């Protein structure tokens, strides 16, 4: 099965960091064989998205890579295309074509003869009868005026409506079923009417239907113009009616204003010259291009026609390019809003530690304690009880095990920690969302915690350290500090060391398990404040192993390891 672009997409996504395995690829193949995702590119994108993308942030990554890999090759894994590619087309000679054409002409000739000679009188009678009938019957009136379908912002709009009825003597009434509120409608009672008004004014006498407005304007955006829906109806005295409905497009009259300045002239000339250069380059390249030849071959054209096709296609290419040149020149002098294409995808993974690894480490921080209402039956304890007492009085119930670990995360923010902002954000986010919403408190400080810790990143919500420590509700709270401890600056600051030592002293009185995470690698700690602080509290660098060891300390499992 020819799905190389799919494999390319798969490898790209894997390299981008999505946890995809070979069975995910096989699942997509299986679905394609069953017929899902074969209609068009969007269906294929949806299929891959459902199977491979599991969160909203991966979606953007996927869209980007999909455009890149599937757009480059125009082959979609379509079942029908495979058969045409593999089949060998026949060579058709020019003589055959002529003969066949001649043959078909002869057939149609006879047919025409038959029809024209068969029933002239009958046809004549039929037509005569029908016209008499139509002539007698009442005819439906129709609109013969062509609607004006655009209006400039703030300008006058006038549409002279004219309706015509084949029965000359019929009296016609025209009315406006829906029209925007800035237009007024007047029926002159003789088959003409006028619809006029100034755009944006409030004086129209038309009915305004907000629901229609909503239906038509749900996609209003700066690029797409706004439409006003108008529906007119003409009725004659016998009740026959017809309708004319159209949309009035609101256009900006900015399009006609052209800025003439020296820079715009230079810009236009530069663009024109560059386009001309590219055209000449492309046309020169095309004559040696293999692609067009291959396409003609597969379409089954004969070799003799090949050259003619090529020259024709070259000519059309040149004409097309000239048209495009003209269009771009007009556009560049008109457009004011240039969309800034987002050429860089923001991937939220930040080495040395991926989000997934962080999440896994947080899950490791748990303390399962049996707390709450005793509901579960402890079979072994019951049996022991029976054995001891000799009779079975009642079962032994124990409460369920709940994760009762409480984490206080202190994050150093700003200053020397600015390059690690992403890391700290990831750390806090994974800590909160990894199922630990009630059990985690996050506080921010700058360089070293003195007196106050803040609940937000901008130091607007202070709380005193004493308050926080006194209100630690649960025993066995763990405190994890995320800071560079002066290692980023690379120098030894005795004041900072002293303040931090004081804070740690205060902390150790209330909290048993403290660990320090340092984003700077261990090799840089020696000779800096971090080196000194590392002797006071277990400090780990921020890697998978480091975080794991830090969590082990917080669980109380590593004893006094100073690693």
């Amino acid at each position, binding site marked *: 099965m020819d799905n190389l672009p799919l494999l390319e997409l798969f490898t790209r996504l894997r390299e981008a960091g999505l946890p995809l395995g070979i069975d995910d690829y096989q699942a997509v193949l299986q679905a394609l064989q069953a017929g899902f995702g074969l209609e068009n590119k969007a269906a294929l994108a*949806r299929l891959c998205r*459902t199977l491979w993308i*599991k969160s909203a942030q991966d979606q953007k990554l996927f869209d980007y890579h999909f455009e890149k890999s599937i757009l480059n090759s125009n082959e979609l894994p379509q079942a029908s295309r495979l058969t045409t590619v593999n089949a060998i087309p026949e060579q058709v000679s020019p003589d055959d074509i002529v003969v066949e054409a001649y043959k078909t002409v002869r057939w149609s000739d006879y047919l025409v003869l038959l029809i024209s000679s068969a029933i002239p009188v009958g046809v004549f009678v039929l037509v005569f009868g029908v016209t008499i009938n139509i002539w007698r019957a009442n005819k439906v009136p129709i609109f013969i005026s062509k609607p004006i379908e655009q209006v400039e912002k703030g300008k006058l709009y006038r549409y002279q409506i004219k309706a015509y009825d084949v029965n000359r003597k019929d009296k016609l009434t025209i009315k406006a079923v829906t029209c925007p509120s800035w237009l007024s409608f007047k029926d002159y009672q003789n088959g003409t009417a006028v619809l006029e008004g100034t755009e944006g004014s409030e004086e129209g006498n038309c009915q305004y239907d*907000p629901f229609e407005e*909503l239906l038509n304007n749900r996609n209003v955006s700066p690029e797409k113009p706004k439409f006003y829906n108008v529906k007119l109806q003409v009725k004659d005295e016998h009740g026959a009616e017809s309708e004319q409905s159209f949309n009035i497009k609101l256009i900006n009259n900015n399009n006609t204003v052209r800025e003439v300045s020296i820079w715009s002239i230079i810009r236009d000339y530069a663009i024109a010259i560059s386009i001309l250069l590219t055209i000449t380059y492309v046309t020169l390249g095309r004559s040696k291009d293999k692609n067009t030849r291959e396409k003609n071959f597969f379409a089954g054209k004969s070799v003799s026609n090949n050259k003619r096709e090529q020259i024709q296609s070259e000519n059309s290419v040149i004409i097309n390019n000239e048209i495009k040149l003209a269009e771009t020149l007009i556009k560049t002098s008109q457009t004011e809003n240039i969309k800034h294409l987002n050429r860089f995808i923001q991937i939220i993974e930040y080495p040395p530690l991926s989000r997934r690894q962080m999440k896994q480490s947080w899950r490791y921080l748990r303390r399962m304690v049996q707390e709450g209402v005793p509901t579960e039956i402890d079979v072994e304890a019951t049996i022991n009880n029976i054995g001891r007492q000799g009779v079975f009085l009642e079962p032994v119930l124990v409460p369920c095990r709940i*994760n009762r670990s409480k984490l206080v995360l202190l994050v150093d923010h700003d200053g020397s920690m600015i390059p690690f902002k992403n890391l700290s954000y990831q750390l806090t986010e994974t800590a909160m969302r*990894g199922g630990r919403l009630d059990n985690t408190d996050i506080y921010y400080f700058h360089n070293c915690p003195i007196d106050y810790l803040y609940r937000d990143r901008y130091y607007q919500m202070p709380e005193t350290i004493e308050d926080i420590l006194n209100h630690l509700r649960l025993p066995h709270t763990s405190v994890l500090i995320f800071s560079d401890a002066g290692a980023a600056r690379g120098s030894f600051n005795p004041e900072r060391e002293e303040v931090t030592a004081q804070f740690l002293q205060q902390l150790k009185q209330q909290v048993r398990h403290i660990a320090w995470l340092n984003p700077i690698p261990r090799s840089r700690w020696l000779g800096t404040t971090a080196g000194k602080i590392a002797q006071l509290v277990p400090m780990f660098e921020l890697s998978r192993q480091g975080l794991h060891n830090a969590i082990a300390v917080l669980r109380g499992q590593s004893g006094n390891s100073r690693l």
Partner: protein
Amino acid sequence: MVGRMVKNLLRNSVAEYTGLVQPHPGECDPKTGQLLYPYLPNPELVEAVNLAIYLQRPLLLKGEPGCGKTQLARAVAYELGLDFKAWYIKSTSRARDGLYTYDAVGRLRDAQLAASNRLTPEQYQRIDNPATYITWNALGEAFIAEQPTVVLIDEIDKADIDFPNDLLLELDQLFFIVSETQEVIQANFPPIVVITSNDEKDLPDAFLRRCLFHYVEFPNVEQLFAIINAHFPTESEALVRTALTRFVELREKMLQDKGEAGKKVSTSELIDWLRVLRRYPEDEILSKLEGKIPFAGVLIKNWDDHKRYIQ
């Protein structure tokens, strides 16, 4: 041998879900007696459901609260004519609770009664066989059933973080072992599993890998119109249009102010609101809809929102 071939054939012949078969107004569920409501899914959602059925993988749905994630499973069961089993997860749920419950206390009690000779002969026989104390829950019943079942696992992110990983074996290999009796229960037909999540917690990656994911978008204006017409076919069009216009305006304002993450008015609130509005005479309601939104308590659940949008 022939039986297995027939079983395989049947396995692949589960019909396709189109989202077009709707219950008639007033039709009730035969088992619970509850009124059935129509469900109009997005075509992309229909595609995702068919993909999940074909690949025999669970379908994970995320979306705003009130966008109809839970109703989808019921609608799929209705259209395909299959049984529907629901498992509503609580924060204390264990993975085993979805499969079976073993009544240990009941067995001990019966043993106690047997020791004092207070049981009838049938009840004596019951004690010897531990399998009689097992009650099957949603997934267990789905595995035992003789036809494919639709299983809904609702709000899986409420449970503990390890909970989804505990279900991996059951969802992957479609079998589980009852530890009390050492019985191996293999699924006769792979169930159609629909899992909903409110996105409050991240689910573990190993679990996500096994599922297909679909985000249920908020319907656009035409779809909302179709949904309301399906629920209230006898309602006057003018009322529906004006109410819908006010609703969409309110939602746009909330979207601008709160962005993607905040709580906005949802489809289920719209349906409840319309249900309230139709109890009153039409012209009274139409005139009320011109001014402040009437019965705002059905749409706005927050004092801040009330101050900002209603007053």
